[in-house]
């Protein structure tokens, strides 16, 4: 094909979005909102129409909601907006030519494109221990995983969670409410170590223990034991065996970069993108859990790049990526935020605490209503708020508007944080 023939072919092709969950759906919707009328194909390998993941480790396991109620958009919506939704197709190879390219699914189906977005998300990090294949041992990422876990928990009495991160703790908390015996095994010396400070980790340790969950820190899992192909326990380094009917492994996720690798894109803990979600080839965009982006907060001393795993990030980056594909100026600059519901413990995090040099505790952790505020050079940069929505709202607002809360007053719970927000940020001084 000549170059002109190739570009004529691609011009009519529009955008291919690979990965049809939070970031992909947002990207497709944003393209339409921005006035794009070219074809949009949104392809994913899962059998379901795109759905929300957060409830999978929360309300879904309690049986409060069904998989159907997690669907983002109706089929009519996709039809009316002329977004072709393709499910059950896993893209296995991809190549670029002059002005576009072609992706091929496992089934052999071809998808030609003029514009390309990778929103491939992440997969659970697997652990290689003996016995991982036993029935009753599982991971939690998809609706299919969640359905299996729900069924397994239904008849179980003993749950062991490997990994004390958000997903594991959410499932553990729910299972305790349902009356199961729950043990959390964490390899590190504290819980949710990657995301929160020691204060917040310590709070979660105590709060889960108060709820009757057994938490083992510095736990060294050696293998899973079973009988008749079903898991019966987890063996630790010191030889003890923790009995289990169900084991959930929640030890983090790995970004899906296979396709980006085929395209020769820069990769470093995720697909490397710039502030406008553009990849190193200057053509492809990437968004969501699979992308490694420049740190959107101005926190010298903090990390320059990061990969965020949150709904808010997938939405924001999806919007930015859509604008970039259409040649419109866009820059990811919002304050990241995150939430985690662990039974009756509501955590809301605003901002990124990396690079903090001061912590102010607001309230008493044992009361299960308190906030941890993070400062750098006198400037508020983030907060973990536990059952304190008012604090969260005040901090998120302040950060969004470049405001500050004086550190010497922030610990006084008798003054609402909102009243302490000061218009001008403190002089950083360094």
């Amino acid at each position: 094909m000549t170059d002109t023939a190739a570009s004529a072919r691609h011009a009519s092709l529009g955008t291919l979005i690979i990965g049809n969950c939070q970031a992909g759906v947002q990207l497709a919707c944003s393209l339409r909102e921005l006035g794009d009328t070219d074809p949009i194909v949104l392809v994913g390998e899962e059998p379901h129409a795109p759905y929300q993941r957060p409830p999978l480790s929360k309300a879904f396991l309690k049986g409060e909601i069904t998989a159907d109620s997690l669907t983002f958009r109706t089929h009519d919506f996709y039809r009316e907006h002329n977004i072709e939704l393709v499910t059950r197709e896993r893209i296995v190879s991809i190549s670029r030519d002059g002005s576009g390219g072609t992706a091929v699914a496992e089934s052999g189906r071809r998808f030609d494109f003029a514009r390309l977005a990778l929103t491939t998300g992440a997969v659970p990090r697997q652990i290689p221990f003996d016995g991982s294949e036993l029935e009753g041992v599982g991971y939690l990422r998809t609706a299919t995983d969640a359905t299996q876990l729900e069924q397994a928990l239904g008849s179980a009495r003993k749950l062991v969670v490997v990994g004390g991160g958000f997903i594991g703790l959410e499932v553990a908390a729910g299972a305790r409410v349902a009356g199961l015996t729950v043990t959390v095994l964490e390899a590190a010396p504290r819980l949710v170590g990657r995301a929160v400070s020691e204060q917040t980790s310590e709070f979660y340790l105590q709060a889960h223990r108060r709820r009757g969950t057994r938490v083992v820190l510095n736990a060294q899992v050696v293998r899973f034991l079973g009988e008749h192909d079903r898991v019966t326990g987890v063996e630790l380094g010191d030889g003890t065996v923790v009995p289990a009917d169900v084991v959930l492994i929640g030890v983090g996720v790995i970004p899906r970069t296979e396709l980006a690798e085929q395209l020769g894109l820069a990769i470093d803990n995720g697909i490397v993108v710039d502030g406008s979600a553009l990849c190193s080839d200057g053509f492809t965009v990437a968004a969501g859990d699979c992308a490694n982006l420049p740190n959107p907060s101005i926190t010298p001393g903090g990390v320059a790049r990061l990969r965020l795993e949150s709904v808010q990030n997938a939405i924001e980056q999806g919007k930015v990526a859509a604008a970039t594909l259409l040649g419109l100026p866009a820059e990811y600059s919002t304050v990241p935020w995150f939430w985690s519901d662990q039974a009756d413990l509501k955590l809301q995090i605003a901002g990124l605490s990396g690079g903090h040099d001061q912590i102010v505790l607001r309230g008493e952790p044992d009361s299960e209503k308190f906030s941890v505020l993070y400062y750098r050079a006198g400037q508020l940069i983030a907060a973990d708020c536990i059952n304190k929505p008012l604090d969260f709202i005040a901090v998120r607002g302040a950060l969004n508007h470049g405001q500050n809360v004086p550190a010497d007053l922030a610990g006084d719970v008798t003054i609402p944080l909102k009243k302490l927000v000061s218009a001008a940020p403190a002089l950083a001084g360094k």
Partner: protein
Amino acid sequence: MPSVTYISATGRETAVAGFAGDSVMETAVRNGVPGIVAECGGSLSCATCHVFVCAGSVFPAMEDLEDDMLDGTAIDREENSRLSCQLKLGDADIRVATPETQV
């Protein structure tokens, strides 16, 4: 099926058929009605599903958490402000207005 009418900040009305038991937020999001962002998917964590309930549409009183979260909406709350993820549809038709912005 109850119908839900969403009135945008510029006065544009969008009516969609809802299902009893679904929330005003879910009904909007699934049908792509603009004006409601709902980042947290209804878990009362984001305050980006703010609506003004129109006269004649009635919902049960709000709980403390919703009340607290309403203090943090992008557009200031008013007397008739609610978080639409907490408003479950019954059999009656509903009208709500959406604010100019949610974030």
